[in-house]
């Protein structure tokens, strides 16, 4: 059912967007005063049905799109709008890779979607696929958000998969067959272990060492050692260290300075780059992980996000209107989570380290134990304020 449309997303005529359009009309400066919650709910629900042609390059990352839609709906307090949660849960499990002679022992986890076409069963996923760690992460998130108990997750296979992708230098590649390795996959691997509350698959010391080697002089983290500080890498590094229980090792003050300086109205991801809505989450979320998100200038950030709010729902990366600029599911999702970080009324609070609501976190399988979810050292994971 989650097929690929070969036609463009049609420009919806104004009347089909239903009532309440008045608030979505552009103000004199093109900025709507309010967050159009209902429009966004419809926007994300559409992505659970149909993915427009321009998303063809994300064919193998469809689980990520499903995560973003579910996570945004959860944050908007609209999970009940999803017509059939079980259908999605079953679809996710169809993307679980069973290991065998053709793909090898390290192939366990989830794929994002087969580029060979829709997979009708887990057996089909087995034959040639190897799991992608970021898709495993997205799968576990979706299952948590939709209230699944992980009973069909092959934990041993996932752990073998995680072990197969860790490199000698402590970093992780994405797929056992071979990909580049960097901080993005470190985060996905650590988050996977955290959600399964199982650290067998990773060498924690090596992982921490790699993360710390990727610190740069300006307090930030690059995606690799010697790389320029980048808010995406900072988020991955801080959240990972938080889940590993080694957050004390960041250069706290310097890093906070760097993160605060990312706010130029909206947030950018690197020094002297233009602001982009998704950095509201990468920067703001990092600040929540560090416990300093009260230092965000909420008004400017919110105003910037609103200039990126689209008349068809969703948010774009930069300010502008259709057809110059379109909203996309990734920037829309991180704008919604960013607004939640800034305590937008009516939005569910989130746990930025994982990218899910507090409600879903507390109801998830990994929190159902005395003392709640634990970090790799065995200490309890501290939820943000």
């Amino acid at each position: 059912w989650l097929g690929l449309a070969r036609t463009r997303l049609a420009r919806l005529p104004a009347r089909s967007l239903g009532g309440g359009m008045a608030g979505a009309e552009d103000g004199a400066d093109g900025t709507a005063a309010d967050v159009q919650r209902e429009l966004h709910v419809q926007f994300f629900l559409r992505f659970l049905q149909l993915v427009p042609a321009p998303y063809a390059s994300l064919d193998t990352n469809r689980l990520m799109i499903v995560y973003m839609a579910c996570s945004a709906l959860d944050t908007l307090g609209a999970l009940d709008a999803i017509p059939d949660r079980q259908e999605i849960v079953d679809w996710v499990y169809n993307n679980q890779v069973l290991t065998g002679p053709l793909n090898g022992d390290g192939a366990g986890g989830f794929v994002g979607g087969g580029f060979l076409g829709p997979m009708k069963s887990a057996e089909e996923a087995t034959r040639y696929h190897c799991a992608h760690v970021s898709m495993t992460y997205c799968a576990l998130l979706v299952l948590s958000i939709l209230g699944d108990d992980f009973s069909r997750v092959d934990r041993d296979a996932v752990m073998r998969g995680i072990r197969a992708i860790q490199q000698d230098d402590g970093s992780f590649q994405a797929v056992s067959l071979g990909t580049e390795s960097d901080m993005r996959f470190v985060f996905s691997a650590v988050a996977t272990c955290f959600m399964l509350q199982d650290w067998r698959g990773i060498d924690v010391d090596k992982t921490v060492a790699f993360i710390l080697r990727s610190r740069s002089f300006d307090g930030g983290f690059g995606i690799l050692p010697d790389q320029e500080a980048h808010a995406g890498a900072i988020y991955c590094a801080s959240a990972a260290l938080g889940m590993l229980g080694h957050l004390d090792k960041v250069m706290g003050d310097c890093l906070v300075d760097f993160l605060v300086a990312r706010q130029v109205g909206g947030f950018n991801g690197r020094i002297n780059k233009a602001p982009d809505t998704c950095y509201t989450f990468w920067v703001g979320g990092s600040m929540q992980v560090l416990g300093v998100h009260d230092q965000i200038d909420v008004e400017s950030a919110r105003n910037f996000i609103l200039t990126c709010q689209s008349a068809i729902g969703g948010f774009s990366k930069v300010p502008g209107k259709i057809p110059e600029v379109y909203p996309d599911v990734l920037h829309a999702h991180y704008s919604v989570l960013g607004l939640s970080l800034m305590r937008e009324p009516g939005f569910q609070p989130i746990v930025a380290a994982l990218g899910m609501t507090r409600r879903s976190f507390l109801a998830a399988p990994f929190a159902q134990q005395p003392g709640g979810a634990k970090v790799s050292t065995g200490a309890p994971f501290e939820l943000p304020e």
Partner: protein
Amino acid sequence: MHGRKQKQREEEAREPPEVRTKRTARLRKLRALLETGLACRAVRDGSDEALELTANLLCINPSINTLWNVRRDALLGRAEAPLPDAAPSVAGVDAAAAPDPDAERGTDAAVGNTAATAPSASPAASDALLERRRRLVRDELALNQQALTKGNVKSHEAWSHRAWVVEVLGQAGALVDLQRELELCKGLLSSDERNFHCYQYRALVARLAGHTTDDDLAFAQQLIDRNFSNYSAWHLKIKSLETKERDGVDLGCEALAAEFEAVNNALFTEPDDQSGWMFHRWLTARLSGGRAGVPEHDTEARLALLREQAMLVAELNELENGSSKWAMLALVRMTVAEGRLAEKVEGVDPGPKLEEARNICTRLAEVDPSHHRYYEHLSDRVAFAC
């Protein structure tokens, strides 16, 4: 994902229908190949078909890592396959099996060539092997460049493949035209001077070409001189200076003074540019010892230079009507640094300097009220002499 959908949409709109049909047909062909299970064998044989299909697809979407993996398997297979026996004096050699110097990818030696020989110890044979491998490298780099420039110049997968070609296929750069790669990086950086994939790849190539840290510094300086706002270049400069420190070459007082002068020229022209202030902060830390602790030598000269630089920053702030937040942030740090250094050199109590720094934080909260909580926290940090 950033910015790609709009471009792709425009390109698809311009694409004539027959091109789209052809592409769909190729994808179906590749899918059929992979699904029939012959794919694995076909891939390791390095079939022309698999290579042609993947090449075309990767120029459209360079981020399908599976396809780069198919090519890596195929290329290694071709590089390590036995040479066909091409000596003209050997009777019965099938001329078609001889390596064709004009062929894009060389022949598939595994298929039906009874005259094939294992790589022998003869110099001619190893030369031929190297030459074949060199050709594979050159052609693959060309294909990868197309995928980058036509498809997505920020594709992690494409850049990582390029690094693989240089390191693995190209035998740690030995079979690669490294100067050409450096020129390519120069060109790509002139279109986008913040492409971090390019900087990372260039660092690999530079290392293989035997560049020193001083070469890196010179390159960084070129980029900074072209555009002072290019923080990626500043990152490279600072990182290189830190490498030199680890090798035991510290920036002494004189060198620090020269660097201050250079960066001040730019900061006075463009006081809002964060790149320059980041370097200024690094210089201040070096001057006063920063995280490494208060320095042991030149301490009087350093204190004098620090005071002189603090006055210059205060002057800059005045020119901006006392409202340059970056200048004021720099002053907070310099004031604290001066307090600590003066304590060491002159035995003076740092208390008043810390108080002064906290006052600047208060003024910052007035100048930039939307960040007042940050300045309050900053003031607290000063109290602990950050």
